[in-house]
């Protein structure tokens, strides 16, 4: 069977879990999503950047959760009624993402995904894989690997600079240091 390169219906795309951050729609690869849970009590972990909300108990396993709206420095970062945690797993590394309302599981065809346009310096597109038009809405596809690997480099910085000078007495310094990390 020598199938034509284009035109196959289902093979040319992927399933995505879509969710909202404020009014914008985002999507991540459904294969990376382990489950979606209610936002429960979070234990703050010191020294980490503020988008890193802390750790939670996921049925006896401790996993970190990050706040995507903070990570993307979006204007309002309060939690809403439907705020929940999307638990993602990539290569045995589990992480929770705090999002406003999970909306759907969608199939997005490969050809409807376009590259992220360059916004210049104002928008950080490092975590975006591309954009897709679903019906009339625009969905931004996130690269979960990039988000995870960034926490890795953070960990490295923490190990090397762990207990640096910024620890000195006034407690407020911690916040600044954490932000710099």
């Amino acid at each position, binding site marked *: 069977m020598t199938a034509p390169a284009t035109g196959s219906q289902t093979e040319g795309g992927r399933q995505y879990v879509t969710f909202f951050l404020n009014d914008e729609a985002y999507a991540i690869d459904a294969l990376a999503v382990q489950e979606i849970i209610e936002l*429960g*009590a979070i*234990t*703050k*972990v*010191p*020294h*980490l950047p503020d988008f*890193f909300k*802390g*750790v*939670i*108990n996921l049925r*006896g*396993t*401790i*996993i*970190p959760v990050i706040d995507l709206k903070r990570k993307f420095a979006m204007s309002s970062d309060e939690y809403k009624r439907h705020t929940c945690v999307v638990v993602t797993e990539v290569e*045995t*590394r*589990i*992480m929770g993402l705090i999002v406003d309302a999970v909306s759907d599981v969608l199939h997005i065809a490969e050809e409807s995904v376009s590259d992220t346009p360059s916004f210049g310096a104002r928008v950080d597109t490092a975590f975006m894989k591309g954009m897709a038009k679903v019906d009339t809405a625009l969905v931004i596809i996130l690269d979960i690997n990039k988000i*995870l690997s960034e*926490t*890795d480099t*953070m*960990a490295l910085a*923490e*190990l090397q600079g*762990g*207990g*640096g*000078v910024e*620890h*000195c*007495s*006034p*407690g407020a310094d*911690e*916040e600044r*240091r*954490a932000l710099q990390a």
Partner: protein
Amino acid sequence: MVDFKKLYTIFVEEAMERIADLENGLLELEQSPQDKELLNTIFRAAHTIKGSSGTIGLTDIARFTHTMEEVLDAMRHDTLVADKEVISLFLEATDLIKEMVECVASESVFDISRCSALMTRMEALREGGAGSSAILPDVPGDAAAPAGCPAQERSYLIKFIPGPDLFRRGIDPSILIDELRGLGIVAHIKAYTDAVPPLSELDPEDLYVRWDIHFKSSAAEADIRKVFEFVEEGSDIRITPLTAREAEFPFLGQMLVREGAVKPEDVENALKSQKKLGEILVEKGKITPTDLERVVEQQNHKKTESLKSSISSTIRVDLRKLDHLINIVGEMVIIHSMFQQALQDIPAAGNGAPGGNGDPGQAGSLVPALQELEVLFSQLHRVGREIQESTMSLRMLPVGEVFHRFTRLVRELSVSKNKQIELAISGEETELDKGVLEKITDPLVHLIRNAIDHGIETPEERAAAGKTPKGSIHLSAFQMGDAVFIEVADDGKGLSREKILKKAHAMGLVTDPAAAREMTDEQICSMIFLPGFSTADKVSDVSGRGVGMDVVKRNIEELNGRVLIHTKPGEGTTISVKLPLTLAIIDGLIVQIGGEPFVIPISLVVESLRPGRDDVKTLTERGEVVAVRGDYLPLIRLDRLLGITSRQERPWEAIVIITAYEGKRYGLLVDELAGQQQIVLKNLGTATPRIKDIAGGTILGNGRVALVLDVPGIIEISREISRELSRR
């Protein structure tokens, strides 16, 4: 299909254990060469490896171990004496088997030609007998005559080409092979299936296969032929006696010969001219012999470094422990059904009374049922606890498993350092969590190397100091309370206070000579654990590069353990490693800081107290100290360190937890104590960055995560801060 991967895994596990037996046995044999029982143990170990590797088709290993076994057999029959050189040869062979097994484990290909030189030497040993010059390396043994013993076992190659009608005559070829086994050892069977036709032309009653059988026996050739008596008609049976070399080397060379590509003499000559790579390089003037020696020594070190990796990821459990666990689980099942019964009885007790509803006796009759439930519950609680303890004990392994591996390390390093060192081991039955045991191996290697390299003097130095020329290292383990101590004690020259101070001065760690004089021995000793610190006069390749001791300390602290040094100049050094019994469950003190619960391992807490208003002083407006019974301890405000807003700004309204670290005491300021409980230590998830002052987390009874503080990490951070401040 057979799951080979699984088979291989089981094989590797078992083989690694047998290899350890081999190694330990050989080392013991060196001490008592006449011990027949020991020899039997070694023989059995080799035999088991041979058997199990042969079974799953790892013929290279089987063949190699077979050669080993033959030589061992010669020793059992006193035709060969286990002298130092024989033992060394065997240790080398053991290493090679280990490498082969590791290749099986990593699914990589082992270059089998590396075995041939060793096999030749072993063959030479067996044939040459004790003390002969044949044990010199790289002199291939005389292939021909097994002159000595009359009842000499001989090897045969039996080519068995059965007639196609064998089955129809009611003969099963496997019976013939079984019969052969009665006469000797069937070392190897190769079946040739090239004559099997395509399925469409295949007659199921015809036999298309022929066999090559490598057979070893002391029986006469005629007796062997007799086995095939009934099949001789119509079959082709060729029995060729093999020379020892041929029997053991169906390797590349012989295969080439068999294929007709080269003549046997060519292979023989090639083997003779084959030298070790190093020797060739020396000959060509590419390297000097001393360089070669150095590199070879390094290679040996690599081998010892792989000690750690040889602990497998599965665990062997004492059957009694399992039986005990099964018993308790049985008990739990019984209590479970009793519970069920008691619960069923409750409505009966409630409704069973005549009169039904509104009967005043109803509530009263519930009481005994509830009491019974309470009794059952307490029983369940007890069983639950026992199950927990028993399950934890499954992870416990005797330290001897690791200890005995060091015999080899000491033997080889002491030879290469020209020192005479004896390793004494005690307390090998002490049990330690498998996870702890795995992580402690590397630090122990470092400590033992240090003792050999820096601790123990050369025989001449020892003699000059009035000591026995033979130094000793005592490796011991014992349990005390909820901790296990592992000690490495040498009777060498001890640590020199002056040397350490000099070095500390050079590194800028101690600048004030007066302060240096006041330092306790313990404080001085603890400096050798600083990164980059080494007191060795010259850098040797064993240790002395200043890496090692700081790694040792870090590894041990990661296990919630401590390292302590005791040293007496001229008498020796003892390094004790204190380890928790298990990693998984620790006793924790729960404290509140800024409304958040944190856990401090109780093993690190000396005491806790509320200081008086006058007990807390600031120094140059920066550092704070707290007075505890006349001593001033540095006060670490955990809220500031962790970046939390505390509820208690004033230390005299808060609690100070005293902890000791590297011989110094520190006060940790927390808001309040919230209790004490056993906690299960967990990591914060693989995607969470590692933070120096947090050791991990645990889940409290209310389902929330509480962070466990890393006390050594906290103290190190606060030290760095004060060092930084004093520099400004």
